[in-house]
Structures are given as structure tokens and as C-alpha cells.
């Protein structure tokens, strides 16, 4: 059987965050302690604001990792744009996969909702906070708060396989 995608030596990845505490991003940076030199051979960090300043681009991404939930229209638009440009999209961490805990305001009582209403309106927040899959199609999920390291590594392996990266 052929590969689902054209074979590559290196896959281009994006790491993007929306409403979250970026704990999984931190875990990713901790994984670099062990994997940095292996990964720079197999990954091209096309968009990764944690790691580089110049040349970040969301064009032609093989795998987009998204951490965090969607809380504003602007973020929803950006997520759709990422989907259009990425062959695979992976939700990373509980906020991205389930919305929680970033989505805790969805279940506030009326009084508390009233208390936060001004902020919600002023900054164009949506009525509810959404997991990524509410907004776009997601190919893989790495659950956990923060993300489960083992599942993340397995998912990455799967991506390597799909692009025939050795």
C-alpha cells in the first residue's frame, strides 16, 4: 500500500496556540532536551514562535499542532486558515481536545456570566469556548492536561510514517 502523502525527508510543522496556558508547549520544549538533534533532522519548524523569530509561515504545512481552545471569532478564522494549509491537524492537550478547562465559562451561572459580560463583549469573545474539532476537522488528538507525553510521541511517529520520514 502506498503512503497517504508524498514521501518526504523532512516534514514541515507548525505549533500554534490559542486560549490556553501553553503547558503542553512547555512539555514540548522539555521533550526537546532529549529529542532536539533527532527532530531537527526530521522536522522543519516552519511556524514555531517559541523557537524562532524570523520566517514563521503557515504556508504549506504538513502537520499543524494546535494547543488551546477557540474563544474568539478571530481565532476561529485562524484555525480554518490553518486547516486549509495543513495536511494533518493534531489537537494537543485537554483545552484543544475537549475545550476544558479553558471552556469553564460555558457552564457559569447567570450571575457569574453577567460579571464577565463586559470582558466577553469588549474583546469579541464568542458565546462559548470551543474545542478545535468544533471548528475544523482534526486528524489526531493528544489528550491530557498537560498533554500525555507518550501519546504525543506516538502521534509524531505516526506522522513520520505517513510521510515516509525515516
Amino acid at each position: 500500500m502506498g503512503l497517504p502523502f508524498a514521501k518526504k525527508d523532512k516534514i514541515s510543522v507548525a505549533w500554534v496556540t490559542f486560549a490556553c496556558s501553553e503547558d503542553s508547549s512547555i512539555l514540548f520544549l522539555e521533550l526537546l532536551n532529549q529529542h532536539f538533534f533527532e527532530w531537527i533532522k526530521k522536522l522543519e519548524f516552519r511556524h514555531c514562535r517559541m523557537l524562532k523569530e524570523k520566517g514563521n509561515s503557515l504556508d504549506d504545512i504538513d502537520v499543524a499542532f494546535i494547543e488551546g481552545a477557540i474563544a474568539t471569532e478571530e481565532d476561529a478564522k485562524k484555525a480554518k486558515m490553518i486547516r486549509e494549509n495543513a495536511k494533518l491537524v493534531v489537537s494537543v492537550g485537554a483545552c484543544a481536545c475537549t475545550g476544558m478547562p479553558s471552556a469553564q465559562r460555558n457552564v457559569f451561572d447567570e450571575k457569574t456570566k453577567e460579571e464577565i459580560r463586559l470582558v466577553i463583549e469588549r474583546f469579541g469573545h464568542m458565546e462559548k469556548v470551543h474545542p478545535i474539532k468544533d471548528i475544523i476537522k482534526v486528524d489526531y488528538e493528544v489528550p491530557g492536561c498537560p498533554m500525555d507525553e507518550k501519546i504525543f510521541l506516538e502521534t509524531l511517529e505516526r506522522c513520520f510514517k505517513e510521510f515516509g520520514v525515516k
Partner: protein
Amino acid sequence: MHKEGDFEIKVDSLSKIEGHADLEVKVKNRKVEYAHLKISESKRFFTQAVRGKSALNVAQVVSRICGTCSIAHLLCCIEAVENASGIIPSDQTMVLRNLTMDGLMIRDHAMHLYLFCLPDVMNADSILEIAENDRELVEKAFEVKSAGNELSKIIAGRAVHPPYPIVGGFSRVPPNDEARKIAHLLKDARDHALEFADIFRDAMPLFERKTHFVALKNQNYEFIGGELCSSEGYCISRKNFLEHLNRVVKPYSQATGFEFEGREYMVGALARMNLNREALHPDTKRDLSSMLAYFPSNNIYMNNLAQAIEIVNCIDHAIEKLETSDFKKEQISLPKLAAGEGVGVIEAPRGTLYYNLKINNGGLIDYINLVIPTAQNMVNMEKDMEKIVQDNLDVGRSKERIRVELERIIRAYDPCMSCATHFLKVRWIEEGSRKRT
């Protein structure tokens, strides 16, 4: 039309800092009109969400406010719950908490300095670029960072959102042989940490702006315990911290700022070094004596050198504790929560973190209030931005160069945006006016 000498600089989505922030600077007739830091991170309303939740695990929830320093939130909130309920942790618990903080500082400072700042210092765009030319240096960077990570794992269970620290103590105490093993790892990393301190010492840009520094002050340069002191030479009761603060609301930003005693101030490694350098570990003092002479300093870039020194200090502190402590299993019964109000104060990597909460008769949270480091630095940051723009304009630097300098000075603060924005103030006040909290 723009006249010669008028311009605006906008930088969208600053790179290499956590979270999301934009800058806006306006210059008229070659004079800075304003410098604004706009935080564009969505609020997640944690202080509302924890009302009515059990005080026993509220710390695990609020630590989700910030990924970079979840450990500081966790320990600070636990301290506030214990303080409210009159629970006094054992000496061993305090040693383990201090070790947990050492692990956090080593890991977190290493991330900021080696991954985000080192490229500035080495004139490279990124750590990826440095790796192409100097693989060994990058290996050393990851070795130090990894030693901090391992320390957190052994003592607290994980580097991010660790499971062992709980109200009243630790749910697991490390066996002595594991502790000694980590001490070894830290010893191996120590030489590299010294080398990086040298690199940063030689690369600190010149800059001066007199400001005010606030930090916990104690005898062993620890991040827990001690008094809250100012660089003006006085200390205040930790209980009353809020009374000394003014909240400053910026209509263009999703985060609030603070003033201390009516003035901008700075919290963080530089504040701690300015106030506590006499209390550094003897081994750190011995090996870094030439650097200590730079402090006290009014140069915000020195925050990075202070962080580099703190890494060494935390390594020395941790090695000593790991080698000399005899850790014993402790029986911790589920603590009885009493109703009351409590305060927690901790030095997080980015500065003083403050929790104030109230527990009701049912052991549930009535309210929770917190003041986080990046919010405290906000006003000071904008003042520094104004000055750096003006200084650069005065010597005729280009707009592009000024943009680079601006990003760099903000990065020197190591700001953490996800943390700065959890804050909610419903009443929006016009720019310039402020309210006493």
C-alpha cells in the same frame, strides 16, 4: 501624511515569549508619545471558576493559569489554603517545597535564557541556527534544562502540573538514593551553568532607568518565606501587600497593570538579586564573585544575568539539600480545613506571586484573588519601552533597529502572557485614571 520624525511602530505577535502580545509605539516630532504593550491573550476566568470548589484541590485547578510556572501557582495557593486553615507544614515539607522551586527555576530560566535569549546574544535568529554552528553549546543548554526537569520530576512528580505537592505536605517523599542520584546530575550540569553565566555577563547591553524593586527577602535566597521588601529599604507585612498596590487598567490591553506605593516597580530575578545577593549560596558566591559586583543594578537587561546566576544558586542549594537530607516517609492525614482567610506569597520565576483567598465553613472557596508577576511589571515595562525608543531616536537609529531593541527589552523581562491575562476587572476605567484596590 506623516512628517519626517513622526512614525508608528507596530509589532504583531512578539516571538519567543510565551503567549500573545503586540507592541505599539507612537513617535511625534522625534519624541515618544506612547509605548503600549497590548496583551491579546483570551481570559479564561479561573478566579470565577473556582468559587464554591473544595479548598483541598483548588491549587491543582489554578495552577492551570500558567504553564510556565504552574509549580509556583500550585505552591503559592497551597500556602494560602494552609494559612487560612492554620495548617503548619513540617520542616521536611518545606525542604521539599524549596527543592521543587529550585527545579522550576533551573528549568524555566534555562528555557528563557538558552532558548529565547541566547540567539540575541549570539546574533543568531534562533536556537536552530545556533545548533548548526555550535552543536556542543546547544547540548550543554539542554543538559542544564534537563537537570532542572529531572529534579522537578523526582521531587514533585512532573515538571508541569506536578501531582505530589498537596495541602499539608507531599503525597510521595523521594527515597534518599533517588535524591543523591539527582544531586549527581546537577553537579554535571553546574559547569555548563557557569559557562552560560559568563556568556550572558559579557553580553549585557547598557541601559539605565531608575525604578523600584520588590521581592521576598530571606536568609538563604529562597523563593518561599521571608518578608516582602522594597529596594527603598523597607519591608511590609505580606498580609497587607494589596493595600500597597494600585491597579492600573489599560483600555487597549486584556491585562491589568499594577503600581506599588503609587509608582511603577519591577519584580523578578533582578529584584531578587538586588535585594538578596548577600544571601546567595557560598559556592555560588565563590564562583561568581566577579559578577555579583554588577548588582544592585537599574539595568533591566541585567535581569538575564540575574537569572543565569539564580540557575547556579539553585543548583548549589539543591545539591546541598539532596546530599544532606535524610528524607523520611511522612504520614499525612487529610488535613482538616477551618474557615478563614489566608495569604500565600512566593517568588515565581518572573517575580512575586500573591494569593489571597477565603474558605467557608464547608471547606469551600468563597473567593480567590491573585496578583501575578507579569501584571506587576507591565507599567515598568512600558516606561522602559518609552525610554529605549527615545534613547535610540536621540542617537539617530533607524525604525527597524528600534523595533529590534524593543522586542529585546521586553524579552529581558521574560514576560509570560498567559499568566498576565487571567486577570479580570469588570469595571473599565479610562486610561490614566486608576483605582485603589
